[in-house]
């Protein structure tokens, strides 16, 4: 039996979401910082708005498609999720939450240093332009989500 056939539905859904999140994150990163660099392109406010609007639409679209596809696959009288799945998803959520917290603290420290030190602040990311703050926050959000789903699929292999 193949590995995919041996997975429970929540495990399959986590894999699909992990891959979709990863692809969308790579597209967004390349669009905002060509060549996947850490310095976002200096977009105008309208270009920035358009790009983030596209990201929101794409995120809603693929998450809805994944949720609908798995809801349609659900069969009556079949148990598709149980306490083990809930426990594994809680573990993933904990990892994702810690990553998100860590990232938000980094942004707060970066913003504080940018404000206190001003022009002399030299860090891997600066926060002088709103697009840079937005880029960093979206990156943190996506990385936290990727870690959440990564932790879930890894945990399924362990327990």
């Amino acid at each position, binding site marked *: 039996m193949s590995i995919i056939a041996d*997975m429970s539905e929540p495990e399959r859904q986590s894999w699909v979401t992990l891959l979709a999140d990863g692809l969308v994150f790579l597209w967004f990163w390349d669009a905002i910082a060509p060549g996947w660099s850490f310095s976002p392109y200096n977009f105008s406010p309208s270009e920035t708005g358009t790009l983030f609007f596209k990201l929101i639409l794409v995120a809603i679209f693929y998450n809805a498609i994944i949720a609908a596809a798995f809801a349609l696959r659900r069969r009556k009288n079949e148990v*598709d999720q*149980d306490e*083990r799945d809930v426990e594994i998803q809680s573990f993933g959520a904990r990892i994702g939450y810690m990553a998100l917290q860590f990232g938000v603290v980094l942004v707060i420290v970066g913003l504080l240093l940018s404000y206190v030190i001003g022009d002399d602040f030299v860090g891997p990311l600066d926060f002088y332009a709103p697009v840079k703050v937005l880029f960093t926050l979206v990156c943190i959000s996506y990385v936290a989500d990727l870690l959440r789903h990564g932790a879930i699929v890894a945990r399924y292999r362990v*327990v």
Partner: protein
Amino acid sequence: MGGKKSHIANQIKRVRLARTDLTQAELGRLIGATRQTIIAIEAEKYSPSLELAFRLSHVLNEPIEELFQFSGEWD
């Protein structure tokens, strides 16, 4: 699945095969668990909750202490 074994051993697979005709999927359906969870329990990779353990005991018609044994060690 190559995870660490639980400190709780069990006789689920032996009892299921010796006393019933249930497949892992059928046993899972009867106790409200997925086939993957039954596989993990039988491999002693996952320790079920007390409620799931009682459901297993009820469906397999075996006292819970016959189905599960604690090694007496923990981390």
